[in-house]
Structures are given as C-alpha cells and as structure tokens.
C-alpha cells in the first residue's frame, strides 16, 4: 500500500469519525431540547 492510498483511507476514516461525533452530539440526551428548539422558533419568524 503506497502513501497515497494510506492518505486516502485516513481522510475517509477522518470524515467518518467527524460524522460519528456529529451523530453523538446531536442525539445526546442532554442536548435534546437545544437541538429541537429551532423547529419551534422558526414557526414564529414572520
């Protein structure tokens, strides 16, 4: 496996880790109210 392939895999894995962190942060129980708040606030934006 050459350096380019290792780098390619590393970037892909890095993106996957970022995605997992986003999921974890979004679905954390203590973040629930904060993450759902925008859907209520946008109803009163006119």
């Amino acid at each position, binding site marked *: 496996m050459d350096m380019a392939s290792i780098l390619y895999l590393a970037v892909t894995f890095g*993106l996957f880790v970022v*995605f997992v962190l*986003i*999921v974890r942060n*979004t*679905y954390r129980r203590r973040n*629930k109210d*904060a*993450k*759902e*708040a*925008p*859907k*209520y*606030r*946008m*109803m009163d*934006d*006119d």
Partner: protein
Amino acid sequence: MGKPQYHTDIVKSFVNWSLVWGVVAVLVGVIVSFQMINPDLNYPPYLTFGRLRPIHTNAGIYGWGVGTIFAMFIYMVQRLCKTPLWSLGLARFQLWLFNATIIAAAVTLLLGYNTTLEYHEMEWPIDLMIVVLWVAFSINIIMTIIKRKEEQMYISLWYMMAALIGVAILFTVNALAVPVSAFKSYSIFAGTNSANVQWWFGHNAVAMALTAPPLAMFYYFLPKSTGVPIYSHRLSIIAFWSLIFMYLWTGAHHLLWTPIPDWIQTLAMAFSIMLIAPSWGSVINGYMSMKGQWHQMRDNYLVKFLILGITFYGLQTLQGPMQAIRSFSAFIHYTDWVPGHIHMGTMGWVSLVSVAGIYFLLPRIYGREVYSIPLANLHFWLVVIGQLIWSTSMWIAGVLQAGMWNAMNADGSLTYTFTETMVEMYPYWWIRAIGGVIYLIGILVFIYNVYMTVQKGKEPAPKLLEVEGRA
C-alpha cells in the same frame, strides 16, 4: 426589540423572473419533444434540436431553478435569521446580472457556442458571469447568516449554506479551461479525467442545486403551511450531514462500464446505494411531520404540492441508486429511461416544492390573497398528471429500447438495427409530448393565477397569513 424590516421587493423580482424563465424552459422542452417526433420541425441552423435542447435544460436549471433559489433563499434567510438581508444593493446587482447571464447563455447557445459538457454548455465568458453572480449571492446570504439574531440555525439554513459552497466548488472546478478565442475554450482536463470531473460536477449539481435548496424550502414551507413544526430537527441534522458526506462520491455512477478506474465506479455505486438513507431520512421526517395532519392533503393545496413533491423525491432517490448498480445500468443507461428519471426529479420534486413556495409567498410579497384556490388545485393536477405521463412513457420506452438493443440472434448478431429501435420509440415520444403539453397548460394556469393575484387578489386577513393555503 422591534420587528425587523425584511426586504420583499427583491424577492418579488426574482419570483417574477424565475417564472419567465420557467415558462421558456417548459415551452422549449415541448418544442424539442415535437422535434423528436417530426424532424421537419428542425429549422437549421438556429432552431434545431441540438441547439434548443441545451436552452431547455439551462433555462430550466439556471433560469427557473436557480431563479427560484435566489427568491426563496433571500426570503427565508431574513426570517430564519430575524434580520434584514445584508445588502439590498448587492441583491439588485445580482438580479440584473442573473437576467443578463441567462440572456447571454440563450443567445450564445442558439449561435452554436457550446463546450459540449452537459449542464455546463456555456462558454468561458458566461462562466465568469455565473461565478460573479454566485459569489455575490453567497456573500449576501452568508453575511446575513453571520449577522443573525437567532443563535441556533434551523435546518434550512444548513442546506442553504451547503448549496452555496457546493455549487461554487463544483462549478469552478468544472469550468477550469484555457480560452483560445472570445467564445471558445478547452477544458484543462482530458480523457477519462475530463469525464470524471464532468460527472462529479454533473451529478453533484443535482445535489447542490436541485436537492439541497428544495430540501431547504421543504423544511421551511411544510411546517409553515401545516402550522405544525417538523417531526424531528435532530433527524433533519443527521440526514443533512450524511447527505453531504455521501453525495460527493457518487458522480462516477454516470460512467459505469467506461474506461475510468474500476474502483471509482465501485465507490460511486456503493455510495449511491448508501445515499438512500439520508434521502429517506428527509422523506420520513416529512411524512412524520404530517402525523395528525393528513386531512390537510384534502383541504390545503400547499400541503398537496409539498407532500407530492417529497414523495417524488423519495421515489427519485430509490430509482437513482438502482440505476447506479452496474447490472441495472448496463441495461437502461443511454436509453429513454434516463430522461424519465430526471424529469420526475425536475417536474415532480423540484418544481412542486418551488411552486408551493411561490404560492406561500404571494400573499406575503404582494399583500394579496391567492386569486383562485380552485385554479391552484387545477394547476396541481395538470402538472402531476403531465409529469406522470411524461416519465412513465419514457420508462416503458427505455425498457423496450434496452431490450431491443440487447436482443441477439443465435449466431451472435444483433436482432434489430438501430433504426428499427428508433421507429419503435415513436408512440412513446408522442405520449411524452402530450404529457409535456399538459404540464405546460398547468404552468400557464399557474402564471394566470399569479397574474390575477397581483391584479385582483383580495387584501389578506392577518390571521390567514399565519397558516396559508386552506381551501
């Protein structure tokens, strides 16, 4: 804190001009569909299928599609950020440049200047105009977001930012070319690289111009129309990030069975299948948002447009990944199946949601109630029936075409000549043209309704503005 003064006149202008270009796109589409049936309707050199077809696609994508994006983004960003647009002057400049660009594109395409890159046919001077136009638009929207009064960003804003950044990158990379004269340039990419970059652009233009913006609109206008918030904001965030993560890898599924590296094709195929998940994340979110509200499909015409729109999106994002599988692609690629697929997305998903947005906006930007809800319902049925006839005829034609192309005699020779397969297409091309005419009539009903709303619509009751669209 006082209520912010939002700019609506500029939204009005973009709505009006996107409607103009939308009619042009559909009208030219109907003309080229009849040219397919009767070649005598080609009038060389200007009014031939080869020159009119890119005008149809570019007027549809850049005139109608992007024009509506301009209008909707400017409307939504102010409200979601609870702050006026960052620069009205920049938006006015953008409006003029937008129309100048579309006119320049139409004229040069009619004259035969064409890069031959699908959905990127305009030559380099017009590419430069598009880049300036998009940068001006992006700066205005992003600066408004930066100056926002709302701490948390609603999901529509995320999709809007993705579209701004995504289109900028895709368009610029695919536009990289060496000009050799005022209206001729050559791409800096060659051979399989050129094909790979072209379809990385081509497919992701669908993602960033025809998926992310309509999703931004859908997430905004559905709750506004039903009066009920979306089912889950968290699900919308996960669907957003997974869509962004997966989409950009899928372009090479347009190049299955070609000389590009096999691993790129496999990667594109795998990511295309995975893309079902985020796409359906939004579809399910939309359906779940209708919990207890399904009766509104009967008595709220806006909801009809939006829910049918997201349903076509759901079907589109199942059909697309199936087409990205090697074995299926080998059968249907290059047949009439493919335009059937594309038009379900453009005539079904994108246009239904955009039209719902415009109906929603009318009372707010013109200060008048929609002139006729029965006409809006007639418009709905005409465009849905027209689109279904259009796409279904092409799917049947595509399967027939593929079957005939692949048929072989016992000695290995082809059973049918290419001309014989073309002759078999004629009935389906007739049906397609009729579907297009029905769709065009629906659009004209819409334009009439908009015109009459502006001319004779009643002053809206303040309460009606809160939940618009009830019949």
